[in-house]
């Protein structure tokens, strides 16, 4: 987040501040090299990002809009869309609460083993999605630790919806926490301390002081978490059991349609997911723009106060 935000900030400030705007030719590349590098970048990105994205929508509409919409309102597709929404609706809030709690503990307090805790929170990002699914099969599957107990009580976790939700929680585990920890650490404790001194309770301080300060970072983490939750394939694939109309999420539905050579239908459902990705990127850019603007206003006011 910070990367992209400062990138644009840097490029705009280079134009805005006179004296820094036009550098001497000594630190600029030869125009031919400059345009060669731009050409290489654009070609690479068009080839690897834009063409695949365009292809999804072209393939989806290849057999016409009737086939496209038919593929989306078909019962199996509708139940896949529903399951995807339910999964995200459970996984994202749980990780949101966790992320805020973890960031509060880590950013606002000093304690031993903090860096180990941060590494452990990031762990799910480095675990292969397939392994993430497998470990839940090992715990909740028939062969697993809790399998016999679950079967005795007629509960199903693996190859059922709870397993899908658990696997999704695992793969999206760090998103909110890793966005909030650096943000809350950078903001420090002064504002909260002031609120407490003025007689606010702990919860009041959190709702009225901390939350407004972290709202954009929180939203940013939630958006990325949601995109991954709705799009996760590998982990969910292992625990789902692929029961059509019951334990298929949208990405799994795409796979089934594709393997049945129903390409137009597969790409139609895929186009919804691609649309979700584009909305995610749009919102992400918006939040980066918003936070950058707030940061640009602050430094201008600060010297006057000082």
């Amino acid at each position: 987040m910070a990367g992209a935000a400062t990138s644009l900030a840097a490029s705009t400030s280079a134009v805005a501040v006179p004296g820094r705007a036009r550098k001497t030719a000594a630190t600029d590349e030869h125009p031919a090299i400059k345009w060669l590098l731009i050409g290489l970048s654009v070609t690479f990105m068009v080839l690897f990002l834009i063409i695949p994205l365009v292809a999804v929508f072209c393939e989806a509409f290849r057999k016409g809009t009737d086939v496209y919409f038919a593929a989306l309102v078909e019962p199996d597709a509708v139940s896949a869309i529903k399951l995807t929404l339910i999964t995200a609706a459970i996984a994202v809030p749980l990780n949101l609460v966790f992320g805020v709690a973890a960031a509060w503990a880590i950013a606002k307090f000093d304690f031993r083993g903090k860096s180990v805790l941060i590494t452990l929170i990031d762990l799910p990002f480095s675990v292969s999605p397939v392994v993430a699914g497998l470990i839940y099969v090992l715990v909740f599957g028939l062969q697993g630790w809790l399998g016999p107990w679950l079967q005795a009580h007629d509960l199903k976790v693996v190859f059922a919806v709870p397993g899908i939700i658990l696997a999704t929680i695992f793969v999206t585990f760090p998103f909110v926490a890793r966005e909030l920890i650096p943000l809350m650490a950078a903001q420090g404790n002064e504002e909260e301390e002031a609120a407490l001194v003025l007689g606010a309770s702990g919860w009041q301080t959190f709702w009225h002081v901390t939350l407004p300060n972290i709202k954009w970072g929180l939203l940013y983490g939630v958006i990325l978490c949601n995109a991954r939750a709705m799009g996760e394939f590998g982990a969910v694939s292992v625990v789902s059991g692929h029961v059509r109309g019951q334990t298929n999420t949208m990405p799994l539905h795409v796979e089934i349609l594709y393997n049945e050579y129903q390409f137009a239908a597969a790409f139609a459902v895929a186009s919804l997911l691609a649309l979700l990705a584009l909305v995610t990127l749009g919102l992400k850019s918006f939040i980066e723009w918003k936070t950058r603007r707030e940061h640009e206003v602050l430094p201008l006011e600060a010297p006057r106060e000082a």
Partner: protein
Amino acid sequence: MTPRPAKRHNVLPGFGLSLGYTLFYLCLIVLIPLSAAFIRTSSLTWEQFWGIVTTPRVVASYQLTFGASLIGATINAVFGLIVAWVLVRYSFPGKRILDALVDLPFALPTAVAGIALTGLYAQNGWIGSLLAPYGIKVAFTQLGVIVALTFIGLPFVVRTVQPVIEDLERELEEAAASLGASRWQTFVNVILPVILPALLTGFALALARAIGEYGSVVFIAGNIPMKTEITPLLIITKLEQYDFVGATALAVVMLVISFCMLLVVNLLQWWANRRAGRES
């Protein structure tokens, strides 16, 4: 992270609650399930374990997974550096859209990327049909695996190198130029050493992601045993044959590799931070 004031009584409430909940949730979702893989495998003797994880089919899958991931991460290191440089230093039409699109592989579900790339690189696809006359097959070959892994690793190098290029001090480049260095010499001797830790971090992140990747690869790989079968797929194949022990043994190998990669990334970031701290 900014250093917080030295030892001071912290008046903020909620430490016990928030840390307690964090640890509880972490154990429940991450640590206990992960430990299941290791505990399950510990029922095997070392010989049995070694036998499972070194069969020819498994070794072939390691070779493909690591080989393709290394090539993909290398492509991303080269082009990621160029893209990051171009996005920071130059202005051209469409730049902001390109900048936003860099994160597409993070946002696009891997299954969607998988079928899109397969459709493009199949023999009758837009790109596949252009390459076919030259006898180049991408889909359902090892080349296809590399294409998919390049796609999913693309944002890592750009996003780790970009902030470092932004923070580069132009004065250093001016000094180098005024001392008679050519632009290329300045790049190699002045700019590259500063970027290098971030570049390596991005490379390691892309590599780590590629090694575990599943969704985007299964469609384009064709999944031919010994040829285009990646290790995560082999885990799923074993699971589908109810070979839980075999699947878990492979998962433990993957986990150990992930932990090593995580360690490498942390060391690289520590190096990058130390270097940044020394120079500023």
